[in-house]
């Protein structure tokens, strides 16, 4: 709870505190594109290739995008890439065959589907990417539009919270998922922020690949805690990792003194944060509803030959015990941007931009 602890002024840079304070409050999308005419898109079909249909984060985003596109009469066909390139390529190829108006590849690094995407472009079908790599990255030529969560920012915010909470003396175990593309950007943001604002902090980085979460996250955490008993923060890149990390913390008997800070803000982990009983003490949440809408917006821009918005990110907000109490932790609220201050307004904002 960095906000109330009134840390020693010299230990924590004011910049960090200011940034935290601003992101602990609700904020609105600041990077809004121009309004544009969408009258031509009605009846078009967009293919949405989800990297892994069972990934709750991606599935939630997809559901919101579907809802958004339905507003303007665009149909979404969803196709599951099942976390492997064969199915992902299959989905894109299908999309081409079905004459999709656009193909959204959501999740993977677009380079891993380069050829199929190029084939789509060759067939006159624009390909967009979302939720995969940070929107600030240089994109390959075949990508017509990109949106993402602000990976670098969320990494920084997680670092800021820890710096503030520890009064600039944290020993952090940062756990990445190296085979998920966004993980690296987030790690970079986290480490750079730490290096910049917290010279006395220690960061140990460990990677556990997605396929090894269930088997190795627990062992990794227990080993790391044993190796360095002074570790007092653990920051996994994505909140579902806590389901394997938190038990290991409890089992190591460190439930009281190790705090977990993570990113995403999926409903269940927010609920868990609200109980206050688990090790998770802060969550950098992302407005997934908004992410779905901006992805839809970007798609519509591409469909209508409107220039795409650059650096198109969803909104992030830092949650901890200070502000989680204000939230309505229901699925409805999770779905309507109200945690981020945009209850109902997201749809309004975009429908106002989409001129029929």
């Amino acid at each position, binding site marked *: 709870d960095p906000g109330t602890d009134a840390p020693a002024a010299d230990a924590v840079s004011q910049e960090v505190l200011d940034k935290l304070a601003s992101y602990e409050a609700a904020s609105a999308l600041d990077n809004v594109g121009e309004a544009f005419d969408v009258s031509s898109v009605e009846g078009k079909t967009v293919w949405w290739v*989800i990297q892994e*249909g*069972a990934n709750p984060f991606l*599935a939630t985003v997809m559901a919101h995008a579907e809802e958004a596109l339905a507003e303007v009469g665009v149909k979404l*066909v*969803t*196709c*599951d890439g*099942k*976390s*492997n*390139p*064969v*199915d*992902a*390529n*299959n*989905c894109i*190829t*299908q999309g*081409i*065959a*079905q*004459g999709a108006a656009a193909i959204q590849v959501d999740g*993977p*690094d677009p*380079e*891993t*589907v*380069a*050829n*199929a995407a*190029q*084939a789509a472009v060759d067939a006159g079908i624009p390909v967009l990417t979302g939720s995969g790599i940070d929107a600030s990255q240089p994109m390959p030529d075949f990508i017509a539009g990109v949106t993402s969560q602000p990976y670098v920012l969320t990494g920084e915010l997680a670092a800021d919270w820890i710096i503030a909470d520890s009064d600039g003396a944290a020993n952090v175990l940062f756990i990445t998922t*190296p*085979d998920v*593309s966004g993980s690296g950007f987030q790690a970079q943001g986290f480490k750079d922020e730490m290096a910049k604002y917290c010279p006395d902090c220690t960061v140990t980085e460990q990677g556990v*690949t*997605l*396929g090894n979460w269930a088997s190795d996250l627990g062992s990794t955490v227990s080993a790391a805690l044993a190796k360095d008993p002074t570790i007092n923060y653990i920051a996994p890149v994505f909140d579902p990792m806590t389901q394997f990390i938190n038990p290991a913390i409890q089992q190591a008997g460190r439930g009281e003194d190790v705090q977990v800070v993570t990113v995403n803000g999926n409903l269940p982990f927010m609920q868990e944060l609200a109980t206050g009983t688990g090790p998770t003490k802060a969550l950098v949440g992302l407005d997934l509803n908004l992410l779905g809408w901006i992805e839809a917006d970007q798609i519509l821009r591409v469909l209508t030959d409107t220039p795409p918005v650059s650096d198109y990110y969803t909104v992030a907000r830092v949650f901890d015990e200070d502000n989680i109490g204000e939230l309505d932790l229901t699925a409805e609220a999770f779905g309507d941007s109200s945690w981020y201050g945009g209850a109902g307004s997201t749809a309004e904002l975009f429908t106002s931009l989409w001129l029929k």
Partner: protein
Amino acid sequence: MTITQQPPAARAEASASTTPRWLRSLGYRYGVVGVWIVAFVFFSIMAPTTFLTATNLTAMLSSQAALILLALAVVPALAAGEIDLSVAGVMTISATVVGQLNGVWKVDIVLSIVLALLVALLVGFINAFLAVYVGVQSIVVTLGMSTLLVGISQWIANKLTITGVSPDLGRLVNGRVLGVSAGFWFAIAVGLVLWYVYRHTAVGRHVVFIGKNAEVARLSGLPVQKLKVGAFMVTSLLAGLAGVVVVASAGGLQPTSLQTLLLPAFASAFLGQAIIDPGSNNPLGTIIAVLFLATGINGLVLLGADTWVSDVFYGAAVIIAVTVSRIATVRARRKSVL
């Protein structure tokens, strides 16, 4: 490990019944094909304008090349009475080697492919050596090998995403022949060669014999160990080819992402055993199984089904198809023997 199965009914036929043999055997030989046709008709009715179109069907076939090759890779080991769980691992390392050599270090693409396939063959040889000469159960060796190879691939790839593989190769693999990708025809050709070998050559028949009873095969003078080594190496080579095809057609790769293809490949190979010429050495059945499952997934996507539905379909299809085929087998056997 040796895997003994219920002998397929085809073998058990006698000439007692008066129904012609082809008719009696329809059920178990074409049970899965029947289920496939039902699925096909179902989707054609439900999604007439999208499913039953040439572009859709050719696109569906085109994208199955790598999976067909991987499922075919499972067959030689199974036919020889062994299980090779490292096929997805071999696919991973082969794809990674091609990707890293050509995509990152800009080694000539042909050379990269040759090296990748050599690596695959080497892995096949190590599996074979441990399973055949040392005598460790193949399922265990290859399970370990599978994880080992993914680890090594991550090490080779260093950065976890490989990009920039020669687009020429991609054009070759994805290029259309009769409307369908060249990679698909290549996979089909491999399947036909395997079929020919198992059905019409002495080596193929011998491997099948070994798969059923290695001890008697050895007593009959067959070079059991050599043939098993050969089977492991062919399995690995095919998995390596699957890796080449996947990286070529995608143009990039994340090495850890191919492991998830292991179960689908095995599901297809097992399902394939129940099709047309029931038995452990069934390349054509395996191809049909891959296409059957792909048809289902494709149709479900077009119907707008939720993603979980495709998992349910996949699982249920395997169970139902194999059960149907099994029941038909038992029926056929009962009719013709008793």
